[in-house]
């Protein structure tokens, strides 16, 4: 039977190929879109959860966009006096604070970690946002020659990395957060400051006679749950020349932009799916007329009504199955390429959706198109039962 189905499909190879391509394109688009959307949504959610800070306080003259600070690992050489942290900690509504100091890795040195990556110094005594996301970091005291790398940085726990001419040991790789942490190299704040003293451009940036130990780059602020975040942010901005970034606002804004982009893309995907569905229905609805002679002959030669239904549904299953399989493969590759590109651009926080969710998406996609094919093939399959075996007697040759 399978051989008959196969011959029937290959005989009409142009129609068959068009149907398979149509299904494959729409499945591929929808699957790639799902993977991107799920990854970006997860990245945003996890990022918001793991950032841990309600407010990020940076120098008032910071030329960097809040999204860049929060979600990219691009170097951000911004500095303010360290005394500001104490002042911020005293603002009503502030529950706790932790200072960070930013520098950057070099990218010219042999064996350096690739690219110019943000080097983040965190204060082990007060930090709650970095140490929570690395295996075994919570109660560990990092030595000056030890570093932690984000999930997006090339690095393996136990290996050595060369940064600013120093051989440093990678203690652990942080879990993915979807934020700038993923693209950062992290060390205790004093160790980064010590390294910074050897960087000429930082000396220029900080001013002659100034020591990195007197500066910080950002202060993470967690507010009291009952406090009005806007009021706290306004109060902090009155402390000195600082700028307050509200994480929830930034995340919300990115989410809105992301949704708009994805809805437009989803529209395209759904149109492609609609075209595939129309193609399937067009292909199968004309069968009772196109193939009356062939089906009549099969009936005369002993095919039961069930056999004919199996032939028709078998054709639908093979066409759709091939389309879905190729589409999922295509979607997977497209998703990977888009993921790689987005990570390169660092435009969105992104965390790969779990395998179980991806598997569920595959099953749902296959089931949805299987159902469409079943519905499309059902009517001709039903009509085939009405073909009388005697019709073969009256037919001319069957092309």
């Amino acid at each position, binding site marked *: 039977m399978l051989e*008959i189905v196969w*011959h029937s499909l290959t*005989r009409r190879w142009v129609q068959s190929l068009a149907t398979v391509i149509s299904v494959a394109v729409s499945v591929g688009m929808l699957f790639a879109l799902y993977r991107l959307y799920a990854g970006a949504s997860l990245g945003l959610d996890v990022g918001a959860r793991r950032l841990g800070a309600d407010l990020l306080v940076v120098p008032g003259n910071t030329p960097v966009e809040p999204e860049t600070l929060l979600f990219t690992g691009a170097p951000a050489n911004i500095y303010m006096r360290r005394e500001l942290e104490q002042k911020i900690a005293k603002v009503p509504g502030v529950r706790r604070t932790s200072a960070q100091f930013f520098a950057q890795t070099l990218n010219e040195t042999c064996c350096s970690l690739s690219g110019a990556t943000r080097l983040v110094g965190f204060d082990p005594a007060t930090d709650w946002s970095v140490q929570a996301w690395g295996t075994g970091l919570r109660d560990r005291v990092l030595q000056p020659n030890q570093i932690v790398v984000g999930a997006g940085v090339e690095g393996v726990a136990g290996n050595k990395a060369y940064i600013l001419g120093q051989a440093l040991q990678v203690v652990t790789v942080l879990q993915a957060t979807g934020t700038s942490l993923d693209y950062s190299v992290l060390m205790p704040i004093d160790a980064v400051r010590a390294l910074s003293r050897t960087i000429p451009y930082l000396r220029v940036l900080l001013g002659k006679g100034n020591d990195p130990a007197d500066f910080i780059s950002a202060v993470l602020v967690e507010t009291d749950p009952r406090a009005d975040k806007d009021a706290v942010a306004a109060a902090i901005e009155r402390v000195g020349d600082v700028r307050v970034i509200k994480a929830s606002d930034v995340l919300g804004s990115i989410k809105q932009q992301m949704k708009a982009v994805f809805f437009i893309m989803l529209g395209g995907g759904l149109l492609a799916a609609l075209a595939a569905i129309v193609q399937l229905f067009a292909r199968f609805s004309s069968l009772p007329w196109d193939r009356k002679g062939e089906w009549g002959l*099969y009936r005369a030669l002993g095919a039961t009504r069930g056999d004919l239904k199996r032939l028709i549904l078998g054709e639908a299953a093979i066409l759709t199955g091939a389309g879905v399989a190729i589409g999922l493969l295509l979607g997977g590759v497209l998703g990977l390429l888009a993921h790689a590109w987005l990570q390169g651009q660092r435009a969105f926080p992104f965390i790969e959706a779990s395998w179980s969710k991806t598997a569920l998406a595959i099953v749902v996609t296959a089931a949805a198109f299987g159902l469409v094919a079943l519905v499309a093939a059902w009517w001709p399959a039903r009509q085939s039962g009405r073909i009388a*075996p005697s019709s073969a*007697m009256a*037919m001319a040759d069957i092309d």
Partner: protein
Amino acid sequence: MLLQAVNVSRSFGREQILRDICLDLAPGESLAITGPSGSGKSTLLSLLGLLLEPTFGEILFEGKSTRALSDDQRSRLRNRSFGFIFQNPQLIGSLSVLHNVLVPARLARKRGLEAEARRLLTTLGLSHRLEHLPHQLSIGQKRRVAVARALLLEPVVVFADEPTNDLDAERAGQLGELLYQLPSQGRALVLVTHDRGLVGRAGHRLDLSGART
């Protein structure tokens, strides 16, 4: 009896094509149905081959009425016990000669009949055409492919509607020989034909010239 028609009548709408046809056919017998065009020869062949159901009367196969058989049972009976050679060869255009012959075996889910199909086609002078498609064959060659298809599953009854149409005298003679070997093998042969040679060799003859009345 292998095949019996008991008072079989068939109408299409108000037009009655056949009325009160009775016949018996035993294994090893042959029957030639003759008559002018429109006399119901092909209709009777369809009724006997369970392709059509009689309006009145019944067809018995191996002594059992076929009236009560379900559609699926009739299909299986056609597939396993009957062989059909239609007036038009009725080949599937996308299948090679060999695969056309194998269609009844595929429908019966029988494997391992390829060698038999090749043997039949060789007997019919088509050994060099096995992989050809129907459109590459002459009408006479197509008819021989249809004959091979009808004989593949060794049916107990073979129905042939004008089997020697479009064949030259030599090929018609060879085909006649092949068909008339069937009764000697214990199988029954029912022919609709205008070919006097074939009619003359049949054990029984049914002339439908006056069948309407």
